[in-house]
């Protein structure tokens, strides 16, 4: 395909960019699925055209400046030069660009796949509520998907506008107040793909990440089964959790905690991050987060918890055990 050929040439011109793609970043140029791959190809094509245009213009500027004509300046109108190079040639390039773009749009249309996995994502200031309607459970900030299967995401917001963006898998779709948006993507390799809210949504817009875990079918099915079960852990931690203010905002299925303001914590111990990507989910960070989340994500909706050290310890141990 011409696009890839130009893409390779362009890649050769830009060793910096090429190098940066493999640095473990959530890069649009190291795709984990066909949609993002299509856009990455589009980028290399557009980048190639852009480089050629910029080089031509720069060379012309430098040439005009460097050339010292002894004779007086010419007085020809120059109209033909402008019509050919400023109008005709760009028109051809732009028409080609437009048609390529139209073609690429199809990669993001509804694939009408009856086997698609539906995930409902609701944006909150500043975290992501994730529901698997077919399996009747809710989780947060971490979406597991099976490799190779179409994922249909229904996007809503509980408050202000947000935007769902996982560059390695899919382009952005906004979560718009009062509307429901649908989008589809497929992961074609296992991996952990980072995404982040891309529509400014207030104080902690900067810390509203989400992670997509693409895993083989078997692992995904097992995860789904685990998540569908209520929490089973018991003990002192659970009692303190239910008695303290935690339960008024958070839900742990299978207990009396049924708050709806904050993320569902039924299986929080199994998640990789806390506070929508703010901290790694280690016992120490979890305890620190519970004690004073404002220190890590100032302005977020979780107030500091005035817990005795022993209470904090048991609650942390309890939540950590919810896998």
């Amino acid at each position, binding site marked *: 395909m011409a696009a890839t050929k130009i893409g390779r040439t362009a890649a050769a011109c830009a060793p910096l960019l090429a190098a940066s793609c493999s640095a473990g970043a959530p890069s649009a140029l190291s795709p984990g699925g066909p949609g993002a791959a299509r856009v990455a190809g*589009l980028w290399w094509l557009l980048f190639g055209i852009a480089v050629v245009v910029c080089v031509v213009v720069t060379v012309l500027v430098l040439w005009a400046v460097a050339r010292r004509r002894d004779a007086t300046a010419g*007085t020809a109108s120059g109209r033909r030069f402008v019509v050919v190079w400023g109008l005709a040639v760009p028109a051809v390039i732009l028409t080609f660009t437009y048609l390529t773009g139209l073609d690429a749009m199809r990669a993001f249309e509804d694939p009408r796949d009856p086997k698609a996995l539906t995930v409902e994502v609701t944006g909150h200031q500043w975290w992501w509520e994730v529901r698997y309607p077919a399996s009747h459970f809710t989780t947060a900030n971490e979406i597991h998907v099976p490799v190779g299967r179409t994922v249909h995401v229904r996007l809503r917001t509980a408050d202000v506008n947000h935007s769902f963006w996982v560059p390695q898998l899919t382009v952005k779709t906004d979560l718009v107040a009062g509307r429901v948006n649908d989008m589809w993507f497929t992961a074609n390799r296992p991996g952990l793909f980072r995404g982040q809210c891309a529509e400014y949504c207030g104080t902690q817009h900067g810390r509203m990440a989400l992670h997509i875990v693409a895993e083989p079918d078997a692992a995904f099915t097992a995860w789904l089964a685990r998540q569908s079960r209520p929490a089973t852990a018991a003990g002192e931690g659970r009692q303190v959790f239910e008695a303290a203010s935690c339960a008024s905002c958070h839900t742990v299925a299978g207990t009396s905690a049924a708050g709806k303001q904050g993320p569902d914590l039924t299986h929080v111990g199994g998640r990789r991050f806390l506070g929508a990507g703010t901290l790694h989910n280690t016992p120490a960070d979890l305890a620190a987060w519970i004690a004073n989340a404002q220190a890590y994500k100032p302005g977020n909706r979780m107030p500091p918890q005035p817990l005795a050290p022993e209470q904090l310890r048991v609650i942390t141990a309890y939540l950590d055990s919810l896998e």
Partner: protein
Amino acid sequence: METVTGARASAAERVARRWQEPPGLRGFLTTVDHKRVGRRYLVTAGVYFTLAGLEAVVMRTQLIAPDAGVVAPQTYNQLFSLHGTAMIFLFATPMLFGFGNFLFPLMLGTRDMAFPRLNAFGYWVFALAGVLLFGSLPFGAAPDGGWFAYVPLTGPRFAPGPNLDVYTLGLLFLGVSTTAGAINFISTALKLRAPGMTLNRVPVFVWALVVTSFMVVFALPPLNTANFLLFLDRRFGTHFFNPAAGGDAVLWQHLFWLFGHPDVYIIVLPALGIVSSIVPVFARRPIAAYSLIVLATVATGVISFGVWVHHMFAVGLPQLSLTFFSAASIVVSIPAGIQVFSWLATMLMGRVVLKTPMLWAAGFIVVFTMGGVTGVMFAVVPFDQQVTDSYFVVAHFHYVLFGGAVFPIIGGLFHWWPKLTGTMTSERAGRWAFWLTFAGFNLTFLPMHVSGLLGMPRRVYTFPSGIGWEPWAMAATIGAYLLTAGLLVVLGTLWYAHRRGPVAPADPWGGETLEWAAASPPKPYNFAVIPTVHSLHPMWDERSRASLAEGATSEARVLADGHLVLRTSELDGEPEGPLEMPEHSWLPLAGAGSLFLAVAALLFDRPGFAVAFGVATALVLIRWLWPREAARA
């Protein structure tokens, strides 16, 4: 041309008596001289540029490394919101209006703007709007919803503080100034051109600012509507943007971008006009394909009203509408290509003299092209959806707005500094300023393309470590410091010239258009004799130049019987008769001041005071418009 004939000198003396303004503070507060108002616009917009630039320096410092704690997120959000709002509304447009105010009458060969008092009024309103917006920052009350202020984040439920009232009221207030300025530019260009200046002899800069002004007339109302409705939602409980009661959050986006995208060209077109003024002078030949460049300017203005949805490709609108707006967004780049190749043709066929203004123009062509090619990428729907609201778009529009507007503005300042202040700038310092700025600019914004492709969203107050964003953020911050240094050298060079620079002759560059026929700086009346124009480049054409020296023989163009300018016909520049112009007045300041107080009263929710000051404004207007003389016959 500097040999002043006796006839001309006596004409100058007679005209000068009619164009005096009071000295001192009173003169400062009451002046309506377009040159003083224009310079004032430039200085005030420069101050607001500095303030908004310092905000950017703080933001880049916060983003120098992951998880930095230079400013709190709440502060950061105010900084970036105010940075964008101020750069667009309080710097770019007023700065270019400043050039327009200073240059229009000079380039057109007349003595003032069509509405001199409205001009002064517009300045005071603009200055006070800046005071309102920047003054809110120390109180933590600056707008914090982004320059685009999307609802519902900015609505009554999620933004209960005063921050967004400052935004809506500040922009509505400023809109008065912008609209007044636009109407003034159009009327001046239509009615006050020197005799003989037919439409095909109008300088490109004038064309550009007239197109911009028409765009203001039609693009500002959507913004005003949006801000008006948002204010009502916030203050009076209406439901325009409230989905729960039948309103819609996307309506805001439509209204905002119906203004917002034309606004890009409102800013860029006059800047391109500055380039079209600089390039022919330093290529020593008329601009190539003049008619095409004018056509391109007009076409840009028209097409830009049909592309706003490319800011909303990720909102979830029907695919079919996206394909239409994608096509329009592609088409709007064609006129820009025409302009770029017109400058290139001018340079290639001319003999380029690389003085400082030309250096900025040449640098502009390179960086503007880079902003243009990434701009085309945003017309490609899936690519737009991938990089919109990421650092890639931050990079893109800074190439367009900093590269495409600030470079020409600085080039224009160097170009017209002799005319503005009567002093010459240092060539050597000018080169240093250029190369530092050019290097700093590219080091700041080129890496942002990469950050965006690597998945970094914009408007984030911090970012995590370990996901590959650090080196690019660090490079951009270092670039921002270098850029600041470059801009300081610009400022220092201009300031030094103003204070100690050598005296400038009337026409230091061998200029093309009529402003170079006036003294440096120009006398209050600009031209002792209104010239007649015989070509697109009157200063390079003997007949036009000769017309400036005919005092006694062309009494009709001396107009020394009053504070007079010559009115001419819209299309052909045929003389229609003299027009009496208003003189210095307190009314503009009084009107702007009382309107400002009315707005402030609304901000503090004091309707009684708002009505009182509104009535005061109306009284000023009545005094202003009262006919000066009784009807004869």
